[in-house]
């Protein structure tokens, strides 16, 4: 399969008086046409800034450094003039966010808002745009769509609002959907509905998905490939099954062992990762995870490890320099 999006050496920094915050510090990945990549990480890992950088939605004092390339079907989004980028945003690449309430305009009905995005991006009349809006509302499974078109965002539940956002994002048949924590604000049963919907639509419309989330469970269900971010870098990536069954980077392993699985009990203490996420103003020298890592040795404190190839996976850890690391398999009690 050919790559739809290839990101190379992405660096996004925020130039503040206190220094440069290197939120994303050299990230490479690619997504195949119709593929699904999950980017996981905790707060401050740089996952959301990565997503925003692709759309070049970074405001001053932030900027995507000129050495970065974001190649989307042969065009470099990092250097594309603003007016050409506008044609791609919302049209070929769409984005949905965590909180649909703040992304929707409270004074227009949801129908008007979907129709507006259709009119802006596709050369169609008002009537046709309205029809398309209705079609999208039905596609995303909003019951009595004709009636709900006239609802204002506040009249809808969180789950319904997220459906509207997805409808709007998909109204122009994007090739890539960037979803930044799309279900984090939702209850589990509603989250299950939205995840099912996204999977179904991906299959139906053949679009690629870049899913940004902190939730390892959501990633396991939604994507084929995973990139784990820590300290502004990708520390491990590979097929979802390999990463979850045989995590090679100690951070990935610790993260997986730190969450209670259904059926686990307090008599077995959880694996806690000591300390805190380092500050992007002052990343540690060497491996950024080394100060919190149980396996760290002298070299980790001084030399930043590159991504080492381990089978289908790649892990940025010195322990993987000569192939796979021995990892105890993770057991699910239920």
């Amino acid at each position, binding site marked *: 399969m050919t790559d739809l999006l290839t990101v190379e050496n992405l660096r996004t920094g925020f130039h503040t008086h206190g220094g440069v915050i290197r939120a994303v510090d050299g990230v490479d990945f690619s997504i195949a046409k119709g593929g699904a990549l999950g980017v996981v990480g*905790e*707060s401050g890992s740089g996952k959301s800034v990565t997503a925003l950088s692709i759309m070049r939605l970074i405001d001053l004092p932030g900027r995507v450094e000129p050495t970065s390339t974001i190649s989307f079907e042969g065009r470099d989004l990092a250097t594309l003039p603003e007016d050409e980028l506008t044609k791609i945003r919302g049209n070929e690449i769409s984005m949905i966010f965590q909180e649909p309430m703040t992304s929707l305009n409270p004074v227009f009905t949801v129908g008007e808002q979907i129709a507006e995005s259709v009119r802006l991006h596709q050369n169609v009349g008002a009537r046709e745009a309205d029809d398309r809006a209705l079609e999208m509302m039905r596609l995303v499974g909003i019951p009595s769509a004709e009636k709900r078109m006239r609802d204002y965002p506040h009249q809808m*539940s969180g*789950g*319904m609002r997220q459906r509207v956002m997805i409808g709007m994002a998909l109204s122009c048949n994007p090739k890539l959907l960037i979803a930044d924590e799309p279900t984090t604000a939702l*209850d*589990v*049963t*509603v*989250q*299950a*509905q939205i*995840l*099912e919907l996204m999977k179904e639509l991906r299959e139906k419309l053949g679009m690629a998905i870049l899913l940004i989330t*902190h*939730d*390892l*469970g*959501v*990633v*396991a*269900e939604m994507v084929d490939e995973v990139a784990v971010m820590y300290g502004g870098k990708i520390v491990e990536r590979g097929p*979802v*099954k390999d990463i*979850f*069954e045989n995590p090679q980077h100690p951070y990935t392993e*610790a*993260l*997986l062992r*730190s*969450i*209670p*699985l*259904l*059926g*686990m*009990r*307090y*008599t*077995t*203490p*959880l*694996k*806690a*990762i*000591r300390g*805190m*996420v380092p500050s992007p103003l002052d990343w540690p020298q060497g491996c950024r995870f080394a100060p919190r890592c149980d396996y760290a040795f002298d070299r980790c404190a001084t030399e930043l490890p590159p991504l080492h190839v381990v089978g289908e996976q790649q892990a940025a850890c010195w322990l993987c320099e000569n192939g796979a690391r021995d990892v105890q398999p993770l*057991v*699910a*009690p*239920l």
Partner: protein
Amino acid sequence: MSTDAVTPSVAPEPPEPSEDDVLLSVRGLKKHFPVKQGLLKRTSGYLQAVDGVDLEVRRGETLGLVGESGCGKSTLGRTILRLLEPTAGEITFDGVEILGLGSKDMKDMRRHMQIVFQDSVGSLDPRMKVGDLIAEGLSIHGIGARKEREAVVHEMLGRVGMPPEAADRYPHQFSGGQRQRIGLARALVLQPKLVVADEPVSALDVSIQSQVLNLLVELKEEFDLTYVFVAHDLAVVGYISDRVAVMYLGRIVEIAPSDELFRRPLHPYTMALLSANPEPIPGRKSTRIVLTGDVPSPIDPPSGCRFRTRCPIAQQICSEVDPALQDHGLDHRAACHFPGTSIAGPSPAAA
């Protein structure tokens, strides 16, 4: 759920309940909030946040309250501490009916019942130093002289894994996980019998969440505590709790020991929650039960069983008769007319 699933660690069996073993007991508890509308703010209805809950919290156990937003779990947690005055019902704490207590007696009682909140920013006064925040309970209850309190504060900080210097700093100088530790120190300084923990780890990153969960378990042992642990995350609640109560629209729909609930869920809502829980095990969820629709409004809940509007197995009787919590053995109770009926083909945990 497969019954022959092997659990690597079996938690100690919770103690058999007897009169003495019940620390807190709640009967017919209701908390309704008036809904005001219009210019004159007339009461147009009541939001039935908690609507008829019977519950026992056993001495030394951790009881989990789990449910989605608006199910009343937080309101229940606050009402049992009388932080919210209930609309109806009885609350007996350590053998004393606390709703009849006057303000002075209630204040004395509060020493023994403390709460930890989710929002560690909103629950710690930004203008107070951490040391004063932790000592606040001691000074309110007039315990110890200033010097003694200082010593207690330093000891508490140590117990929650913070350095003594933290006492002289302000809440904003700490991270979310550290603030949650401060909140715990503040709750435990009075050596309470009961601690209600309201979503204490929900706002934290996963790596920090596990630190705080482990700390909660250690402190419980050390201080001989009883917890009521309120959260929306079923795996987290199941992990830390001896027993779990599942709530839906102001009611408890199922309550059982944690292992038992996961192995043999009886209420369709519990089954749906278990199946919706995203687990970091790729390829596991082949058949997922997806509930349709949203939770109905607690202002005007459905007749009969409140879950029936979203229930895949609802029958005529479900809209007519409100099912009571019934005993199904093994300390397991569920409020359903058709308990244990599978709501999807293969069981959700069958990998």
